[in-house]
C-alpha cells in the first residue's frame, strides 16, 4: 500500500509519514500542490492525504485537477479550518474523507486504512469475528450460539465495528458512521454505547472481542 502525503508543514508531514510507515504503508511526501499533481500522475497511489492549505495550488484545486483527469485514487482531505461548510465543499469536489486539524494520528491512520479497504468490502451479508456473527439482512447477532438482542443504534455500532474488524475505529469515525454527526458533540456518548455493547457481546465470554484504545477509540478483534 502506497500513500502520498501532501502537506507543506514539514513537521506534520514527517510524523504522518512515520506513523503510516509504522503501520506498513509506503509513504511519499510532497510539500506543494503542483508537485503533488506531477507525482500523482507519475505514480499510482492507494490513498492521497491532501492538506487544503498549500502554497501555490491549494488542496481543493489539486483534488479537482485529479478528478478532472479521471484519477480515482481515494483522497483524505486535511484542513486547519475544520468547518462543516468546508467539509461539504471538499466532499463535493471529490474527496472521499475529511479530517479537521488538529487530528489524532491514530485516527488519521485508521481513516487511511479504511479508504484502502473501501473499494472491496460491504459485500458480505454475514459478518463474522471469532464466534460472533452478525447477519446484515436480518439484523440478528449471535455469539456462541446465543442470540444477542440489540437496539437499532447498537446494531449500527456493531455493524460498523465488525466491518472494520481488526482496525481502530476512532471516536469521531464512529460518530460519523453510527450517529451521522459531523461535529464532535464533546460528550462521552460513544464510550457509553460501547460499554453497553460490550456488556452484551463480551461480558459472558472468556475471550473479549471489543478492545479500547485509550485516547483514540475502539477496536474489535479476536486476539487481545
Amino acid at each position, binding site marked *: 500500500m502506497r500513500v502520498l502525503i501532501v502537506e507543506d508543514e514539514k513537521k506534520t508531514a514527517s510524523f504522518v509519514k512515520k506513523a503510516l510507515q509504522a503501520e506498513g504503508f509506503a509513504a511519499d511526501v510532497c510539500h506543494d500542490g503542483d508537485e503533488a499533481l506531477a507525482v500523482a500522475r507519475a505514480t499510482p497511489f492507494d490513498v492521497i492525504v491532501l492538506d487544503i492549505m498549500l502554497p501555490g495550488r491549494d488542496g481543493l484545486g489539486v483534488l479537482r485537477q485529479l478528478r478532472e483527469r479521471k484519477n480515482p485514487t481515494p483522497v483524505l482531505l486535511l484542513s*486547519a479550518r475544520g*468547518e462543516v461548510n468546508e467539509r461539504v465543499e471538499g466532499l463535493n469536489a471529490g474527496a472521499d474523507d475529511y479530517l479537521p*486539524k488538529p487530528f489524532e494520528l491514530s485516527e488519521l491512520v485508521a481513516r487511511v486504512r479504511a479508504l484502502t479497504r473501501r473499494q472491496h468490502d460491504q459485500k458480505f451479508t454475514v459478518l463474522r469475528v471469532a464466534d460472533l456473527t452478525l447477519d446484515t439482512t436480518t439484523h440478528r447477532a449471535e455469539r456462541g450460539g446465543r442470540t444477542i438482542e440489540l437496539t437499532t443504534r447498537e446494531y449500527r455500532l456493531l455493524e460498523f465495528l465488525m466491518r472494520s474488524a481488526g482496525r481502530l475505529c476512532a471516536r469521531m469515525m464512529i460518530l460519523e458512521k453510527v450517529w451521522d454527526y459531523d461535529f464532535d458533540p464533546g460528550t462521552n456518548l460513544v464510550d457509553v454505547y460501547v460499554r453497553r455493547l460490550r456488556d452484551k457481546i463480551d461480558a459472558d465470554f472468556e475471550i473479549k472481542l471489543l478492545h479500547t484504545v485509550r485516547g483514540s477509540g475502539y477496536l474489535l478483534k479476536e486476539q487481545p
Partner: protein
Amino acid sequence: MTVRTRLTAWYAAVMFASLLAIGLLVYREFAPEPKKDTPQEIAEDASDFQEVLRILLWCGVPAALLAVGGGWWLTQKSLAPVERLTAAAEKINAGNLGERLARSGNGDEFDRLTAVFNAMLGRLDDSFSRIREFTLHASHELKTPLTVMQGEVETALREADLPTAERERLLSQLDEIQRLAKIVDGLSLLTKADAGQVKLDLQPEPLDELVRDNFADAQILAESQGIRVELAACEPIAIRGDRHRLRQLLLNLADNAVKYNHRQGHITMGLRRAGEAAEFRIENTGPGIVAEALPQVFDRFFRGDPAHATAIDGCGLGLSIAKWIVSAHHGDIRIESMPGKLTTVIVRLPVSSK
C-alpha cells in the same frame, strides 16, 4: 420634559412677553398726556390703562396660544432629523455595524451630525471586525502547532519500551492538547458565526424525530449517574432548520442536563407547539444557577460556580454555541433556575409556514 415641550413653552412665553412689552410701549408713546388734575381725570386715566390691559390680554392670550401651536410645529420640524437619527441608532448593534444612516445631503447641522455619527460607526465597525479577524486568525494559527504537538506526543506514545510513568504523563498531555483543540474549534466556529460566515443548510426537518433521537441518547448518557430521563411530550412539528446544527443543539442541552445534575436526579424534556413556535423544554434537577448569574450563562467561557467549574469537563462554549444555533434559526433561548431544585432551558423556534 422633552426638548420639544421645553422649546415650545419658552417660545410661547417669549412671544407673550414681547407682545405685552410692545403693547405697553405703544400705549406709553401714543396715549394722551395724563392730566391728573381732578380726581375725575385721574380715574379716567386709570380706566384707560385698564382698558389697554384688557385689550392686551384679549389679544395676547390667543396670540400666545397660536405661538404654542406654531412653536410645537416648528420644533417638531427642526427636531425630526434628531428623532430619525435616534431611531436609526437604536437599531444598530454589534451585528449590523456595517449599516449607515441616510444623510439628507443639504449640509445643515443635522447632516453634519449624521456624517459624524456614520464616521464613528465606521470606526466601531473596523475595530469590531479587526477583533473578529484576529480571533479567526488566532484560532486558525493555533491549529497548526496543535497538530504538531498532538502528532509528536502520539508518535512518542507509540514507542514500545516507554516507562509507565512517562506514558501516563504523555497521555495526560494528550488530554490537555485535545481540550485546547476543542476550545479553539468552538472559538473559531463562534467567531465565524459572528462574522456571518457560517451557512446553515436549511431544510424542512421533523423536530419531533430529532427530539426522540436525542431522548434516546440522553437516556444513555444519564444511565451511569442513575439519572432518570423522561419525555413528557413530543408533538409532531416540522421546522425549517439545519439538521446537524439542531442535533448539536439538542445534544448539547441534554449533555448539560446530565453534567449539571446530581446522582439519582431526573431530567424531563418535552416538545410542544406554542402558537407559531415549537417549544422545546428540558429541565433537570441539580445545583442550578443563582439569579445573578443567569444573564451571563450564554457568555463565552462562563462557568456557573468557579469552585465546580474544573470538575466538569467541556470547553465552556457549549451554551454560547447553543445560543448561536437558536438565533441562527430566528428563535430564542432562555434559562430559568431554582437553585438546588430545578433548572429549565426553554428553546422556541419558529415553525415553518408549510
